[in-house]
C-alpha cells in the first residue's frame, strides 16, 4: 500500500512539475490572448506566423461552429467584469455586433483597415472584417438540375430533397436575419413557412448539411463556402454554386471574418499589433491559398484561380449592424419555427 501511495505521489509530482513549467509568464515576454471562432485548422498557422514575425507569444482559445461558438461568446460575456482576452477573431461579424451592444468591445481603427470596403467594417471601428466566406449552395453532382437561388428551397421539384442547418445557430441565423432585411418581414416569414411546407430537413450544423449532400442523402443545401470546398477537396461528388447571381437576384450573402479589440484587454498594444497583422494583405493571401479558400476583401490580393474575386460576385447588400439587431429580434420566432 505504501508503495502504491508512493508511486501515485511521484506521478502527481511529475505531472505537477510538468504542468507548471513554462506557465509562468516572464515580465519581459510579450503575450497576446486571442479567442478564436474561426476553425483552428485555418487560424492556428496564421497565429503561429504572427509569433514568428513579431516574437509576441499567442495564447489562444479556440472554438468551433460545431459547438455553436458558445465557448468563446459566452466566455467573453461572462468575463466582461474582468476581461482575459485581448482580441476576438470571430468567423462572422454579426455576433461581433452582439458583443458591441453588450459593451464588451472597444474601438480600434487599424491602419490596415483603410483599404477594406466600408460595408465590411464597423464605421466606429468596433470590428473590422477580412477574408470572407460566402453562403453557397452545395449540390450533389448526381442531380440532373442545379438550384441557382435560395428560393429553390421552396420549389416543389426539390420537395424533401434539401437540407438546411438549424437556423438558431451560426451563420444560418445571420443569413435568415439578412433575409428579413432584404425580403422584408412578410417575405422572410413566407420563406420560413415555405421551407417547412416543402419538407426541407434540418441538420445540426452546416458541416453536417454538407456531409449529407456529399453522401447523397440530400440533393443540396445552403452552407458556408469552406464547408463546400472541404468536401470538394476530399473528393466527394459535389459542386459549389454562388446563389442568386442573376440581375434581379438577391445576391450572395457574404460572411467576412471579423476582428475586434476587447474593452479592458490586459495587453492592448499587443492586441492592436495582432489586429493589424490579421488585417494585412498577407494574411488574406494566406487564407485564400489555404484549404478554406476565403475571399480577400482588400483589392489586389493574389488569389488562386478557382476563387471568384469579391468584385465579380453579386453580393447581398446588407448592413451587418441591422442584421445583428434583426437576429436578436427573430431568435424567439426561429425557436418557435424549430418547434422548440
Amino acid at each position: 500500500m505504501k508503495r502504491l501511495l508512493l508511486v501515485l505521489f511521484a506521478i502527481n509530482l511529475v505531472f505537477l512539475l510538468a504542468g507548471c513549467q513554462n506557465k509562468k509568464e516572464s515580465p519581459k515576454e510579450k503575450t497576446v490572448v486571442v479567442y478564436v471562432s474561426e476553425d483552428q485548422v485555418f487560424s492556428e498557422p496564421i497565429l503561429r506566423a504572427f509569433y514568428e514575425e513579431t516574437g509576441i507569444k499567442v495564447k489562444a482559445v479556440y472554438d468551433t461552429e460545431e459547438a455553436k461558438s458558445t465557448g468563446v461568446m459566452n466566455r467573453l460575456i461572462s468575463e466582461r467584469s474582468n476581461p482575459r482576452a485581448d482580441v476576438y477573431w470571430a468567423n462572422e461579424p454579426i455576433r461581433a455586433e452582439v458583443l458591441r451592444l453588450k459593451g464588451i468591445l472597444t474601438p480600434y481603427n487599424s491602419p490596415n483597415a483603410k483599404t477594406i470596403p466600408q460595408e465590411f467594417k464597423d464605421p466606429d471601428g468596433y470590428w473590422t472584417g477580412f477574408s470572407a466566406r460566402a453562403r453557397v449552395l452545395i449540390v450533389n453532382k448526381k442531380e440532373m438540375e442545379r438550384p441557382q437561388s435560395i428560393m429553390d428551397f421552396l420549389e416543389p421539384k426539390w420537395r424533401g430533397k434539401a437540407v438546411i442547418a438549424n437556423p438558431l445557430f451560426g451563420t444560418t441565423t445571420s443569413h435568415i436575419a439578412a433575409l428579413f432585411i432584404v425580403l422584408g418581414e412578410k417575405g422572410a416569414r413566407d420563406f420560413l413557412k415555405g421551407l417547412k411546407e416543402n419538407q426541407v430537413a434540418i441538420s445540426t450544423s452546416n458541416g453536417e448539411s454538407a456531409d449529407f449532400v456529399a453522401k447523397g442523402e440530400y440533393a443540396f443545401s445552403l452552407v458556408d463556402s469552406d464547408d463546400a470546398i472541404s468536401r470538394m477537396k476530399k473528393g466527394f461528388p459535389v459542386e459549389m454554386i454562388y446563389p442568386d447571381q442573376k440581375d434581379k437576384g438577391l445576391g450572395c450573402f457574404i460572411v467576412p471574418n471579423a476582428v475586434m479589440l476587447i474593452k479592458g484587454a490586459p495587453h492592448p498594444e499587443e492586441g492592436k499589433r495582432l489586429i493589424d497583422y490579421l488585417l494585412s494583405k498577407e494574411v488574406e493571401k494566406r487564407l485564400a491559398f489555404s484549404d478554406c479558400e476565403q475571399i480577400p476583401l482588400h483589392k489586389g490580393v493574389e488569389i488562386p484561380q478557382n476563387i471568384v474575386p469579391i468584385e465579380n460576385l453579386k453580393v447581398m447588400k446588407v448592413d451587418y449592424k441591422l442584421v445583428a439587431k434583426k437576429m436578436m429580434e427573430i431568435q424567439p420566432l426561429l425557436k418557435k419555427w424549430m418547434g422548440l
Partner: protein
Amino acid sequence: MRSREEWQLLGNSLFLGLTVSFLATLMGSFTGIVLFKCDIPFKVPLALSLFVPIFLPPYIPAISWMDIIGANWIDNQWAGFLGSVLCLLNIYFPVPLGISMLFLASVNPRYEEAARLIYPQREVIKRITIPLVMPGFLLSFFLVFVLSVGNFNVPSLFRLKVYPVESFTVFSAFYDFERAIALSIPLVIIILMLFIPLSLFLLKKSCIPLSLGFKNVSKGLDLGRFKWPIFTFLLLLSFVFCILPLGNIVFDSLSLDAYRLAFSRGGDAIMRSLFYSFFSASIMAFFGFLIAYAKDFKIFPHLSVIDAILLFLFSLPGNCLALGLIDLWNREYTGMVYGSFMIIVLGFISRYAIFSSTIIYLWLSLIPKVLDEAARVFGVRVIKRILFIQVPLSKMGILASWMISFIFCFRDTDLVMPLYPPGLEPVTVRTFTLMANGRSDMIAALCTMTMVVPLLFFVLIYQAFRVRRP
C-alpha cells in the same frame, strides 16, 4: 413548468434516462457477472473491447452512430429516441459493467463457499452473489440515469427534444445563462428525489461485510449448454458497442503519417489531459475518503448536505457549471487560479466529486465497525485507525472511485470547453476544434490515441499496484 412543451421535455428526458439506465444496468450487470464468474473464453479482450467506449468523449461515438444510421430518419422523433438510446447505451454500458465487477470482487468468498455446500453454483449466484452486489446494481442504475438525462451531445445529434438540448439552445442562441440554469432545475430535483431513497437503501445494506483480505477468486462457473450462446451474445455486444462505432475510426487512422501529425497537433494536449485527470482524481479520492469517513462515523452532523450539493453540481449542464465557475473565480484576487490549470481541476472536482464521496462511502459502510471500535478501545489514534484499518480495507473502493473520476475527467468536453485557460486545452477540446475541417485520418488517429493512452496509463498503474502482492 408553465407550458405543454416543458412537460414534453421532462417526459422525454425521463423516458430516455430510465430506458437507458434500465437497459445498461441489466446488460452491464449480466455481462459483469458472466465475465467475472463464468468460464467464458477470451474474457480479457472481450472486457477491454466493452470498456473502450467509456474513454471517449460522448460526441465521438455519437458521430460514428450518425454515420452508420444515416440521415433518413432525420424528422422522426421515435427514430431519434431509439438512436439516442442505442448511442447512450454504447457510451454508458461500461459503468454498470465496471461497478458490477468491482462489487463482485468485494464479495466475501466464504458466503459463497458455504452456500455451495448446499446449492449448485448457479443457485449460489442467484441466492447469494446477486443479493450481495445489489447495491452496486442500484448505484449503476442511478449513475447511468444521471449521466443519460444530463447528456446533451447525443439527443442533440439525434434531434430528440430533451431538457439539456433546450438548456443548451437557450444558453448558446440567446446567451441567457439564468434561464439555462432554470431549465436544468426540474431534472436536478428529480435526481435528488431519486438519490434520497437510494442512499437509505444502501445504508440498510451496510451490514454486509466485505471480503476483508480474502481474494474472491472464481473457479469459473460452468455455463453448460448456455456457454456458447452467451459467448455469442458477448461477441455481438462487443461488435455493436466497440467494433461497429469505433472500428471505422481505428481503420481511418492506419497510417504513420496520421499518427505523426496527430502527435504533433495533439500530443501536448494528451499529456495535459492525463495530468488534469490524474491530479483531479487524486484530490477527489483524498477528500472523498475524508468526507465518506466523516459520514460513516458520523463525526459531523448533516454531512449529507455535502452529497446534495455535489449531486446538484453533477446534475447541472457542464457549460452552465463552467460559467458559474468563471463568475466565481474570474476576479482580481483569484486571477491566478482562473488563469491556470487549477480552474480545470476545480471544475472537475465540482462536477465529479460525487463519484468519490459516494463510492468510497458505500465501501466504508460495508466494513464492519467492530474493527475500528476495537482499535479505539485499545487507544489507537484516529489517524492510525484510518491509515491502518480503513484505508487498507477500502483501497479497492478508493481505487475504483479514482479510476471512475479519472475517466470522466479525461473525457469531459462540455465543462472544459468554456473554461480552459488560453493555450492549455485538454485533448477532448483539441480534437473537437480540429474536427472542423481537419484531416480525417489525423482526427481518427487522435481519437485512437485518446482511447489507448489512458488504457496504457491504467495498465502501468495496475502493474505498480501488483508489484507488492505476495
